[in-house]
């Protein structure tokens, strides 16, 4: 039983990792008053970028390159979004929908063009779990928290860094000012459009990293549409986490747990249709949004043009 529980916790953290990366990025974007529904597209672009990058070099170097190209691809998807939503002040929601469509179509087209019509099943170098000596031996939680791929450890640095940055630095406060009161920010000498552009690009890069994590730390291969709505789930995670890095990371863990629940059920021998587990994260998103939306304090200028 404790083996099953430990495996469940490990799977929870593993599946939460890409969600947390994407949601942390989106929380920064939203703090600047921009809601990027195109995050789904950024994740997909990141996954494809990881495929291309990892193919450039064998072994660990390829994985590293995969993460870099993945982040860059996510940034480019966000740049397309920002050109319309921030530059032209076009409707953010519709722009985001278009960017997601564009990214799904483009990655699918390029994938089939580069790797054949059916898309050969590719095996890519993955970043294996790197257990931290000592800590990973802690009963129950040790393996879940300290025997994960490096992408998870990146989160351990990113969450406190973002929490500190957004509340203690001039740039972090400028970001929040733009999302709350853009006119007041202008009076303080801040240029809202620049801040929004930077925040959107940062969110896209983290979305790209999330996609790269799916490919390089989890699946070990690429599939069309493998983002599977994670961008939208990440947006729900931002709401649940109340736009705060620690809250966002905790909310991501909740969604990771929902995805990992099937392992626990299998171990306990409970028979349920597996589609129920596949649908669980999406159902959880609905429940969470219903219970939190009314009370959540979104950045006041969120989504405004």
């Amino acid at each position, binding site marked *: 039983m404790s083996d099953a529980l430990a495996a469940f916790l490990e799977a929870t953290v593993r599946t939460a990792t890409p969600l947390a990366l994407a949601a942390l990025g989106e929380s920064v974007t939203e703090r600047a008053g921009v809601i990027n529904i195109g995050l789904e597209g950024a994740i997909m672009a990141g996954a494809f970028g990881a495929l291309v990058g990892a193919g450039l070099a064998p072994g660990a170097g390829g994985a590293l390159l995969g993460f870099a190209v993945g982040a860059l691809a996510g940034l480019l998807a966000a740049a397309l979004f920002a050109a319309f939503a921030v530059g032209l002040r076009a409707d953010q929601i*519709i722009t985001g929908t278009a960017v997601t469509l564009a990214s799904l179509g483009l990655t699918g087209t390029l994938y089939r063009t580069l790797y054949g019509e059916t898309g050969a099943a590719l095996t890519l170098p993955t970043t294996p779990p790197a257990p931290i000596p000592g800590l990973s031996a802690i009963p129950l939680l040790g393996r879940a928290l300290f025997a994960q791929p490096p992408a998870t450890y990146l989160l351990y640095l990113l969450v406190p860094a973002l929490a500190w940055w957004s509340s203690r630095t001039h740039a972090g406060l400028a970001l929040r000012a733009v999302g709350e009161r853009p006119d007041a920010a202008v009076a303080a000498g801040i240029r809202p459009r620049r801040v929004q552009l930077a925040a959107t690009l940062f969110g896209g890069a983290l979305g790209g990293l999330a996609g790269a994590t799916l490919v390089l730390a989890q699946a070990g291969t690429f599939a069309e549409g493998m983002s599977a709505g994670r961008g939208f789930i990440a947006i729900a995670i931002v709401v649940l986490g109340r736009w705060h890095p620690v809250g966002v990371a905790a909310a991501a863990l909740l969604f990771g747990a929902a995805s990992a629940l099937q392992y626990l059920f299998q171990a306990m021998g409970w028979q349920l249709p597996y589609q129920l587990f596949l649908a669980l994260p999406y159902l959880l998103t609905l429940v969470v949004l219903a219970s939190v939306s009314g009370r959540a304090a979104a950045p006041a200028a969120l989504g405004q043009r």
Partner: protein
Amino acid sequence: MPLRPLAVGAATLLLAAGGLVLLLAATGHDAAGALSALWAGAAGSRYALLSATLVRATPLILAGLAVAIAFRAGILNVGAEGQLLAGGAAATAVGLAGAPILGILAAPAALIAGVAAGAAWAGIAALLRRRFGVLEVISTIMLNFVALHAAGWLVRGPLQEPQRIYPQSPSLPDAARLPILVPESRLHVGFALAVLAGVALWALLRFTAAGFRLRAAGLNPAAAASAGLIAVPAVTTGAFLLSGALAGLAGAVEVTGVTYALYENLSPGYGYTAIAVALLARLHPLSVVVAGIGFGALEAGAGAMQRDAGVPAVVVTVVEALLILLVLAADRLRDVRPAAPARERAA
């Protein structure tokens, strides 16, 4: 359909076609060969026109109308895909069960079931928005994935064909199938229904009090409410249900007119393409019919392009996205994205 939007539409299409040529060239395909295959597959023959393009256009028109009517009311329903699947599943169940009892009434009963299921699926998102303030962009997308997995469960469980070999439902009996519209083609009565729905919605928006309320609630909810004549939440919910009903009809028509069975992948993304259809038509019901036929041609042609020129059919998704972005750039959709209060809600 005034002239200026038509001109903008034509310019948009030309730019998107240019984008397609660039993309084909950049990915190393023979652009001329691919485009001629696209044309041949979309309009090159009687078969292409009737049995490929117009058959494909049918669910796109209905789902496009669903998106358009919702957007007009200030609702960003991007859940047509899930509502379509719900409609297809219900139509299959009722068609299968009803055929022995209802005779020729089985097909209409299946359509009605599809309409009801689509409206019910949209109703979940409508309820979440009205009671809990959940942004429908997120909730309807989540419901799309739930519908997909629910359909996957149905065709491997309760609705699976008796031999239990393939993940699909049994084939619908003749009584539950839609009649063919044009002899010696695959064009079914559903196409006529889709065109009729477009005309009916246009008349509703233009000539009826309900249509006026819907447009007013979408354009400026605060003004509509303060005018005292319009119960905005009720109108919004009504429009949401109507939207879901249309998308559900799209799924029911696809099952009873084309596939005659429920599959997990009943829709190759009709519900998402419908967003592009509606936006390119600038949310005008009659233009949706035209745009739906255009996108039907594009999708039919894309299939031929993949078969005959080896160009991945997903390339049309890029063209669709490009079209949306070009329309956004053309006018930033200021006139169709009102819903100011939606902006104050969290998400």
